[in-house]
């Protein structure tokens, strides 16, 4: 297995606060990698640095051997990292299908005049996007809602649509930021099955932030625990569960 994403001593400071301190991640192709930690541990900040939203104060991010820290979110997305957001960010006025299609936009090889003049290339591109988006909606179990405006989707489906949209960018790595937040037990079980299928059937490496321990322990093979921006544990679920430092971070110690 080759290393897909590697961060070295990734650090970011906001004023006097060091939100993430010397974080080292090493994600191999095909991993189902969990990033956990108590509230405010810096998990989402790590995601933001991986996807170009924040520029790290020091340290580096390497994706497929290429240095990507400091690049814009658009460039990072086009290199093959996609993500979802903790607070869902869908395109509310677009339909469910169109939302997924925007993910496929970056691979469009047509220019504006193809669309303005309605050349055959335009129609081919529309078909490609629609088919790809529809496949992914089916994969996420949303195909029956394809025509609905995204703002009318119920909460659990909104989270799934975000994943479908992220997958439509054909990523090598997908970063899921608390995909199960606010879901009930049944929805969570469905979701964990889906996340596993993303890795197994679509061959996309998954990096997961999640608060729900049962879900993370159930599907992740490697787990890294952050607390106050520092990595305090790294290993398979079994080890993490019994790690005294982790227990202390979550339950509090003396």
């Amino acid at each position, binding site marked *: 297995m080759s290393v897909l994403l590697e961060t070295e001593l990734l650090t970011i400071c906001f004023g006097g606060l060091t939100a993430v301190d010397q974080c080292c991640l090493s994600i191999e192709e095909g991993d189902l990698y969990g990033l956990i930690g108590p509230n405010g541990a810096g998990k989402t900040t790590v995601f933001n640095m991986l*996807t170009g939203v924040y520029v790290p104060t020091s340290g580096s991010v390497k994706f497929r051997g290429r240095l990507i820290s400091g690049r814009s*979110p*658009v460039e990072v997305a086009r290199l093959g990292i996609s993500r979802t957001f903790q607070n869902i960010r869908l*395109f509310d006025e677009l339909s469910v299908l169109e939302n997924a299609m925007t993910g496929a*936009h970056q691979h469009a090889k047509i220019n504006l005049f193809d*669309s303005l003049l309605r050349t055959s290339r335009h129609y081919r591109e529309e078909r490609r996007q629609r088919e790809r988006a529809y496949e992914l909606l089916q994969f996420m179990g949303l195909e029956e809602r394809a025509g609905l405006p995204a703002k009318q989707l119920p909460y659990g489906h909104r989270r799934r649509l975000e994943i479908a949209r992220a997958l439509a960018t054909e990523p090598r790595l997908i970063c899921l930021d608390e995909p199960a937040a606010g879901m009930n037990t049944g929805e969570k079980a469905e979701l964990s099955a889906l996340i596993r299928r993303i890795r197994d059937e679509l061959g996309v490496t998954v990096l997961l932030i999640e608060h729900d321990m049962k879900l993370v322990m159930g599907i992740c093979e490697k787990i890294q625990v952050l607390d106050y921006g520092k990595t305090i544990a790294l290993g398979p679920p079994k080890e993490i569960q019994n790690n005294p430092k982790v227990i202390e971070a979550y339950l509090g110690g003396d």
Partner: protein
Amino acid sequence: MHRTLALLVVGVSLAFGVDWFLGEFIEEYVVRIINLCGIAIILAVSLNVINGLCGQFSLGHAGFMAIGAYVSAYFTTTLRVLNTETGETIVRAPLFDGAWGFVPALLVGGAAAAAAGLIVGVPTLRLKGDYLAIATLGFGEIVIILLTNFDSVGAARGLPGLPNYASSFWILTFAWICVVGSVFLQRSTFGRALIAIRENELAAEVMGIRVARLKVMAFIYGAFFAGIAGGLLGHLLRTISPSTFGFMKSIEVVVMLVLGGLGSLTGAIVGAIVLTVLPEALRDVEQQAKLPGIRMVVYALVLILMMIFRPQGIFGQRELSLKLLRRVLPARLRGGDSETKP
């Protein structure tokens, strides 16, 4: 491609037919209002791409119009010289000769406005909301001030004696092209990307949508048609001066959009027609009621009432389509399974 050509042929023949009909049967005053409606439609629909689809609040549309108007006027007037001995006009660039020379002149005007769109679009990329509105407003003012101070373009007097080229035919043809083009743009991967930027810029970036490039593209597209509309208006009024393209002109177009529903193309068309016809219709009322000036009061009242009772505009972000009509009409009026593919 075939569809585009077919649509163009349909549009041109429609414009031709309507032009003939208007000329034969309709009084000149009404024809003039229809022509102004056509120009307003081009303005509103093109601004809708920038403000409505892409969500970049621009107040510089009149500036783009001015550039289009002055540049096209340059080609239709300045390139013509009167031969004092024979009394004939000589055209230095044959491409711009006669009524057909109007089209290349318009297109050059549009292209100049589009270039201005690029120049405005790039440095204002980092600005959002109010800041962008102020920057684009500043651009419009800069254009006006430049035009007012250059003697070669007539300074504050403007350019008189533009040829009478803006017939209903050309106005309607360009309105048709602008509307069809905008529908095609909206219903394409670029249209969806523009809406994505409007709805959530960060999410659009993370999807790999080239936000900066698309915003500039929206500005160029909008500016191009604003330039065309400016050229048409110039050759309809036959005199252009900087004051024609002042700040109020930009506001007028924005109001058309807001009235129709920001982001709705059909809304933009309806808004353009209503706000062009309404002041003229009220002119009659004014004369009947012997209340000079009441026109502007009613006009303002309509807008205020609109903001109170329907702030999203007549159409909101919806489009007037067969689908919407079917939904709004009572069940018994609805046809059977007359499902047509868009």
